[in-house]
């Protein structure tokens, strides 16, 4: 079987008029992507790192820029507000992942039973994730209103608790759960799809062999289904985790970070510092810290994921 290298070493006779060398094609194909990423991702990243050591404020472009060393980093790591925001973010990420994984995998498993019409219902379940998170946050604010919104009245209908007696968005205890519920509603279909792909990738013959060995359905689930779907589940957890760590739009429009700062996630604090207080230097440092955190965690996670894949 001819290898790629053999082909690219073909004599010049096979390179026609329009034929560029493979080397040229490789670089031609990659260059635009790299240039774009350099311009829009890498250069700004370095600029951010530079800014994080200065006192630059984007609403005072004419003020002289002063080097402040590690002051912002120290301030941020010592700031109780920042830690509160990280905690709110951690709570959000943890619970959304748990709920979405459990419900998503459960749904995928049931859909994999392939009952009649499952394709249609799968498509219907997918609809929430096609909406804009900002628009979702906005209209769930409407749904959560104790008097005119649907949510409280539905709960009241099923449990008898009066609709006006609790406020999902205004109560310090309930607001963190309000945002978890909305995110779960939106993104469980996504996790479900990934798990479904995972379940479908398990070949039938493995189950047949297990049946021959008279393994119970329960046993089959734990020894075959779950382990073989695990890489997919972990992938879903990774993607949802990264996305929810960055969460900004849905929560901003749903609670604005309130009540007080109960649901002020890291990105919301960042936005306030960067685009309302215009503390560009400070927020650049915060951005770097967040990036390093996600990058580090993702790195560790992906190594674990690769090990699971190789089993």
């Amino acid at each position, binding site marked *: 079987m001819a290898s790629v290298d053999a082909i690219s070493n073909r004599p010049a006779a096979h390179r026609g008029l329009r034929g560029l060398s493979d080397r040229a094609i490789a670089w031609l194909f990659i260059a635009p992507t790299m240039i774009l990423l350099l311009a829009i991702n890498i250069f700004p990243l370095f600029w951010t790192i530079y800014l994080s050591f200065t*006192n630059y404020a*984007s*609403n*005072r*472009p*004419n003020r002289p820029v002063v080097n402040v060393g590690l002051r912002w980093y120290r301030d941020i790591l010592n700031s109780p507000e920042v830690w509160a925001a990280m905690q709110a973010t951690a709570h959000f990420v943890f619970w959304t992942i748990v709920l979405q994984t459990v419900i998503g995998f459960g749904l995928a498993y049931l859909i994999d039973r392939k009952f009649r019409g499952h394709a249609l219902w799968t498509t219907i379940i997918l609809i929430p994730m096609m909406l804009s998170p900002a628009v979702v946050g906005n209209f769930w604010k409407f749904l959560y*209103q*104790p*008097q005119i*919104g649907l949510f409280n009245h539905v709960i009241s209908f099923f449990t008898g608790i009066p609709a*006006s*007696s609790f*406020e999902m*968005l*205004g109560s*310090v205890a309930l607001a963190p759960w309000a945002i978890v519920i909305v995110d779960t509603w939106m993104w469980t279909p996504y996790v479900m799809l990934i798990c479904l792909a995972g379940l479908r990738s398990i070949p039938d013959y493995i189950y047949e062999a297990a049946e021959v060995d008279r393994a119970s359905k329960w046993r089959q689930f734990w020894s075959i289904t779950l382990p073989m779907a695990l890489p997919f589940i972990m992938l879903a957890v990774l993607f949802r985790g990264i996305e929810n760590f960055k969460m900004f739009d849905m929560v*901003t429009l749903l*609670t*604005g*970070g*309130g*009540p*007080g*700062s*109960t649901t002020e996630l890291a990105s919301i604090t960042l936005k*306030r510092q960067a*685009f*309302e*207080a*215009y*503390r560009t230097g400070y927020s650049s440092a915060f951005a770097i810290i967040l990036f390093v955190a996600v990058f580090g965690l993702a790195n560790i996670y992906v190594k674990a994921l690769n090990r699971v894949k190789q089993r």
Partner: protein
Amino acid sequence: MKTILKTATALATVGFVFAASQTAAQADELTLCWAAWDPANALVELSKDFEKQSGTTMKYEFVPWPNFADRVLNELNSGGKLCDLLIGDSQWIGGSAENGYYVKLNDFFDKEGIKMDDFAPATVYAYSTWPKVTPNYWALPAMGDANGWFYRKDWFAKPELQAEFKAKHNRDLAPPKTWEELKEIAEFFQGREIDGQKVYGAAIFTERASEGITMGATSALYPYGFKYETTPGKYDMEGAVNSEDAVKGLEMYKAIYKCCTPPGYTDSYMGEGLDAFKSGQVAMMMNWFAFMPGMAKDEKVGDKTGFFVNPGQKIAASTLGGQGISVVANTDNMEGALAYIKWFSQPDVQKKWWALGGYAAHNVVLNDPGFKDSQPFAAQFLEAMGGVQDFWQEPAYASLLQAMQKRLHDYVVADKGTAKEALDGLIVDWTAIFKEEGKL
């Protein structure tokens, strides 16, 4: 596959051509940016005269209040050319003047004979000058405004309620003169059944994201004696921001929030208050005078609405709103923009502005003997403007506002700490900001 590719390419080409061909504004057009609220609609009506006179086409960019500051300040900071004229909030003057976003209008005023003396001094001070108390003008006072109150005078007039209230509190059920009276009235109405519906005491400002709760709470703080600095210009906040009286004022605001507001009003500002009042949920509503003309004409509650000025306590004080109209420095149509300002400053235009529902700041309107009777809220407006106080107008105002929003919302809505702790914490936040600014 091929068809999809072809269609996609076509669409993309169209898109790129369109994107690349975006050009600047056409000749003789002006874009005026303001908040999206009743007075803006009135201004559109008013400006039709200008369009006829000058042949300039007016375009408008109205942004709802919760997003107005964010959107416009970002636009100004990024050197955008969206707005030629901007009716910007009074607190933006410091930053906009110092960063060169607004055109300094002194020379223009002198040339055209526009005198600042013709406008109410409170409005010139608040909406036009920076630094304060200097004759440097960056805006023409466009819209006078203060925080006031709306109430259901039909409910207040019900004989059975009047009797009950009088028996309980030994005075008539009437618009309150102090915050303590306000609270009593709010408690009186809270949870009462009126006309078959459960109603609540009052709708007040609790909005977290932009400026809502600050505007609301200061309406209680100012009458109790809250001040920003002990000595104006020295940034000495200790004892002014967190005086015992100030603490009492803040506690009063929270008490009213806790006892006497409708459920779910944890993040409410102008729109939510209007909805609550119009749908008959509340007996009293805190809101800007700007909404009074519209409310007086409302089909449901117009004739049932009364107005009262912000209650005093130790002093009479109201939270200042209102805006001045400025020319954005990097406009492409400087002549047109200045022509608009000139037209707007004329006495008969100002009179028509008031008639259409805008709050003219020109003396020819305010000092007119018939002014007080021209509208059911005119007298209250004059009274309010006599005692208005504004938030910081510093260039760093956005950070100062953010800090206050957080401290207030944490205390009032999220039940964190005491009023004293909130105000003490606020001083700490503000000191840090002023230090960064080099003012302390």
